[in-house]
């Protein structure tokens, strides 16, 4: 898969020999903090799709739904680091965290900091559990941290702005069907024709409620309400929106969801500053979508608008 990806985006990205990494073709880029990520495959275009100027310097790809090993993360740091430091954007899964922490031990002297993305509001935040999952909101962390790094900010400044995004971003997904991990060859879970799973995880982890399939408008309301509530949005707030397809949802349906979401937000006097509608963080062949909102401030807006050129997301000047 990675070779095909690199072939499709030749000149922008490269795959270092004997690795499952994708890095900017000009990595290591001198004079800036590097921003990296990684995780299991099966979420294409995440993660390699966000490697490019203004976003990620590199990404490590694991097996389907499985964290890359610590050694790959360590190689990733070595490939991109120019001495200015590395910020790793890790989604809140134990495998990703443990492997990345071990990688930091392996590389020893590099200046590496991490942020953990946990935007999925479907998961309760009890302290004795793993906590909220990282899902599509991660893309906004990549975008904004990448922009901050491109502007020449220090590692701690890049980390701080990434943490601010994490505090202000929330997501929720819904599945109409399960995904089919290829090595298993069958669905992870079963949903009836008329059933949906609210709060689905991007690996097919069960959500919070299994309910009857309703109209797109009803489903959008059920997704938007907990996200709006989590962010405590009120009149006058500005947000960035992602309406994300989970792998097997027609783009047209995502626009239907976005239309309703736009209505909900405008009824609440919340201003949509920028919208992304499409497949940004998928779950193999799952039917369904997720909604992500990021509450913006002036700096986050500026960083969101900062130019980026990646295979998946391009922001022009």
């Amino acid at each position: 898969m990675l070779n095909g990806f690199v072939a499709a985006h030749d000149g922008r990205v490269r795959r270092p020999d004997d690795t499952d990494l994708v890095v900017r073709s000009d990595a290591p880029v001198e004079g800036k903090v590097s921003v990296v990520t990684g995780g299991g495959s099966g979420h294409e275009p995440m993660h390699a799709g966000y490697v490019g100027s203004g976003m990620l310097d590199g990404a490590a790809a694991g097996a389907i739904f499985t964290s890359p090993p610590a050694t790959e993360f360590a190689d990733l740091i070595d490939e991109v680091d120019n001495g200015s430091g590395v910020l790793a954007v890790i989604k809140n899964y134990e495998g990703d965290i443990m492997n990345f922490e071990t990688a930091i031990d392996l590389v020893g002297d590099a200046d590496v900091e991490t942020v953990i993305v946990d935007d999925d509001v479907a998961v309760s935040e009890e302290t004795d559990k793993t906590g909220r999952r990282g899902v599509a909101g991660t893309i906004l962390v990549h975008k904004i941290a990448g922009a901050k790094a491109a502007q020449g900010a220090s590692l701690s400044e890049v980390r701080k702005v990434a943490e601010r995004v994490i505090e202000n971003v929330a997501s929720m997904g819904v599945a109409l069907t399960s995904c089919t991990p290829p090595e298993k060859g069958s669905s992870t879970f079963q949903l009836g024709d008329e059933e949906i799973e609210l709060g689905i995880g991007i690996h097919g982890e069960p959500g919070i409620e299994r309910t009857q399939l309703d109209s797109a408008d009803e489903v959008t309301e059920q997704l938007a309400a907990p996200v709006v509530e989590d962010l405590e949005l009120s009149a006058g707030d500005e947000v960035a929106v992602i309406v994300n397809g989970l792998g097997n949802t027609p783009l047209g349906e995502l626009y239907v969801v976005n239309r309703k979401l736009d209505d909900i937000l405008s009824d609440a006097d919340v201003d949509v500053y920028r919208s992304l509608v499409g497949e940004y963080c998928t779950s193999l062949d799952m039917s369904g979508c997720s909604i992500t909102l990021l509450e913006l401030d002036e700096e986050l807006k500026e960083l969101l608008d900062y130019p980026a050129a990646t295979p998946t997301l391009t922001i022009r000047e």
Partner: protein
Amino acid sequence: MTGSDTSVQQDLSSEALIVKLVERIARRVDDEKEYLTELDSKIGDADFGVNLDRGLTAVLEELDGMDVESTFAAEIVETVGRVLMSEMAGSSGILFGGGLMTASAEIKGGTDAESFVAFAWAYVDHVEEKGDVSIGAKTMFDAIVPAVNLLSKSVEHDERSPAETTGAALAAARRGAKFTSTLEAKKGRASYVESRSIGHPDPGAVFTAIVFEEIHSLVQEATDQDIAADVDDPL
């Protein structure tokens, strides 16, 4: 790996014994990978069996190219851990593979009982620390801790035969794995299903029981004792 007064198998070195154990565990996982994956699909992301199988297949290839008799036991275990860590990846790679790598430092005298107990405790410590896990969180920890406890006590008091010791440890591992069925998961992806995880055993704990089954059967054969283990039915 057994009573302190005897080396396990006169005709096999510690090194050969370790390789044999790894081969048997790999074969069991190959046989049961669909079952393990099925268990994982009830509570997790349905890849445990295939990941374990992929890791162990790579381990066997690595061992195949190794001159076992001229390699120290600790080095073999370290190699097994390193290959598992990079080939299995995920949390399992760090916990199982990293655990073997760390604990291999305790194998000083080959497979004698004291070394094995020290090794097992170091492995338990690694899992506890890296996984930030405790008893009752529905993980492999629930199977491995009671088994290692029993192993360690038996060796300390030196009253049981080697096969009795491993049989009792196996029984404890199986009880622990069964116990995980009653628990709500607190760690990993299984924790997201909350109460829906109740009623299904943790695949890591079931795998732990499989490891102890293979240890026990190897020790039984090696010591040529036919003592019926005090064990429950297989899960």
